[in-house]
């Protein structure tokens, strides 16, 4: 029997199909303005015997499809642990949330921290800033360069940071240097959240932002620890949801 997990995030909807213990399918679509129809298309294209939904939009499927839901915290923990069995700390930077999840050795979730209400230090922040500087989000991290640069972005608020960026550019500051400073500003935000929980190895970086090599490097430097990133960091929550579906 095929088993599905769907993660309805603020920016992307991710869909994982398991057969037996094997992950046989992964789909990712933009959430857009009508997430329910995106979900329906994904689900109809590849029907499953069991399905669990997670992510920001999970209740959409609960209300409109009678699908069981779990939070993305539970889902990501399960999914990350499946791929990295010794994982005890998860840094998950998604579209609009940053979460730090702490697990015991046996895999029990003991604690989590989440950013408060605004998009500071999240994927959305990176996305907006990449656009201001004329970069693709995918490769944003590759362009960071702080050679001879002492530029700092002080504001954590997306709106204010954008005006800081614009004023730096108009001063003739190189965009690579500004990009570097922006990454630093996110990382300091993430580190502040991490400090609220106990950091134990292994550390897994999940969510779309884990694709950004510069963020990974900077967090590693700040923590003085190695971080693990899967080649598809988008999938963990959907994968975790599917694993829960299997247990139902």
């Amino acid at each position, binding site marked *: 029997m095929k088993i599905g997990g769907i993660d309805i995030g603020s920016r992307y909807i991710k869909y994982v199909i398991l057969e037996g213990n094997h992950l046989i399918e992964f789909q990712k679509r933009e959430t857009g303005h009508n997430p329910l129809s995106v979900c329906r298309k994904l689900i109809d294209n590849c029907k499953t015997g069991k399905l669990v939904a997670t992510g*920001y939009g999970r*209740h959409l499927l609960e209300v409109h499809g009678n699908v069981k839901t*779990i*939070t*993305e*915290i*539970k889902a990501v*923990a*399960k999914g*990350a*642990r*499946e791929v990295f069995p010794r994982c005890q700390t998860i840094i998950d930077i998604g579209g609009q*949330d940053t979460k730090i999840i702490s*697990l015991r050795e*046996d*895999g*029990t*979730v*003991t*604690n*989590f921290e*989440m950013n*408060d*209400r605004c998009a500071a230090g999240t994927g959305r922040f990176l996305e907006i800033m990449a656009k201001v500087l004329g970069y693709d989000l995918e490769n944003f991290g590759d362009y960071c360069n702080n050679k001879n640069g002492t530029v700092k972005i002080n504001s954590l608020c997306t709106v204010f940071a954008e005006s800081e960026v614009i004023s730096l550019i108009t001063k003739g500051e190189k965009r690579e240097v500004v990009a570097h400073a922006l990454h630093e500003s996110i990382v300091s935000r993430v580190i502040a959240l991490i400090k609220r929980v106990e950091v134990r190895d292994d550390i897994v970086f999940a969510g779309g932002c884990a694709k950004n090599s510069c963020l990974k490097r900077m967090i590693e430097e700040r923590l003085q620890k190695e971080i693990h990133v899967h080649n598809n960091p988008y999938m963990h929550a959907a994968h*975790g949801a599917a694993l829960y579906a299997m247990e139902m």
Partner: protein
Amino acid sequence: MSKDYNKMWSDLDLNLTAHDGLLGVLTDAYKNIYLSQKNRPEGMKYFDFVISEVHGLRIEEILEAKKEKRKVIGTFCVYVPEELILAVDGVDIGLCAGAEVGTDGAEKYIPRNTCALIKAFMGFKLAGLCPYVQTTDLIVGETTCDGKKKAYEIFDEITRGKVYVMEVPNKKGKEGITLWRNEVKRFAKKLEELSGKKINLEKLKEASQIVKEKRRALQRLSLLRAFDPSPISGLDALLVNQISFYDDPVRFTVKLTELCDELDERVKKGIGVTEKGSKRILISGSPMAIPNWKLHTIIEGCGASVVGEESCVGERNFMATLDDSFSSVEDGIQKIADRYMNIHCACFTPNEERIKDIGDMIKRLKADGVIHYAIQFCTPYMMESYKAKKAVETLKVPFLRIETDYSMEDMGQLKTRIEAFLEIMEKGVKA
């Protein structure tokens, strides 16, 4: 609302269009949040009625009282001694401060980064939306935080000199108590001047008795919530507490006692609002003024049950009892002052008593988890959450810290955090 109050509202200088809008939103919210609950006690019908007449019948009653030359005293805080207000036949009204209204108007006077409660009491007045504030003869402020303290200066200007401020000390030592006793004496005098009535022993005893019985009824409700399953939802209990601030105290006590009798019966039969064994949450922190039902709605929407509020709209309002064995007015006023010094607000330093109260409530109510609630920019409670967390975790009870305001923009995020918190409590989430 049972009849057309437009003339009354217009005489009170309300902004009728905006006010209609507010009542519309409130009615819808009440329907969705309250009336949709299952297994509600019959006794809640009275409180539903009070809410449906929140700006109608109750205002009419207050205006009737004013015709009898009784004075209307608006308050914002549980430190203002209700006994004294009743002793001069005054009407004590906790003023509206629990919804995001009139923000743009309020921000003309106060900074954007001000707590939602302060913004709301300014906003309600400035937008012409609160009939209660219009009926007041005196508005009593207090120095429980920097934001309120300074806002009252501006509020005094806006209400053309109606504001009177009581100084609440910052420490509970001997000097603090002396200061507070003098403040309560000064307030008694102010009430006598305003009402033209002298406080006598008989009146003070009578007033104390009314307030005592009201507190007793609220304490009884709190005790009933300790049963599993709780015979009443957290939302309904919160509403009763909110209504206690503006309803007629004698009638309120009668109706709450009837409700509690019914809850007693429910407990005997094992009837509750949730299934036995549902997660039990204690909320601790900033007050939730009416109609702030945000956190309870999310928590109970996730299938858990809120079993207590360590809050000014909750336990801090009724927990301390008055020693009413006084035999002179002077002695009585002092005993009343001392009773209020037993409220453990985060404006005091140190404030270990509150931390102890949280622990006691966890045990008495058999709470499975504590959600610490601070209104954004409410520094005293935001700061104290550190100590609360430490103490709660010593008891091996999970603790979640939330900062939010009255807006709905973070509902999704809060829902995720609270659901995840409940998942963790649920036999420990294993990945």
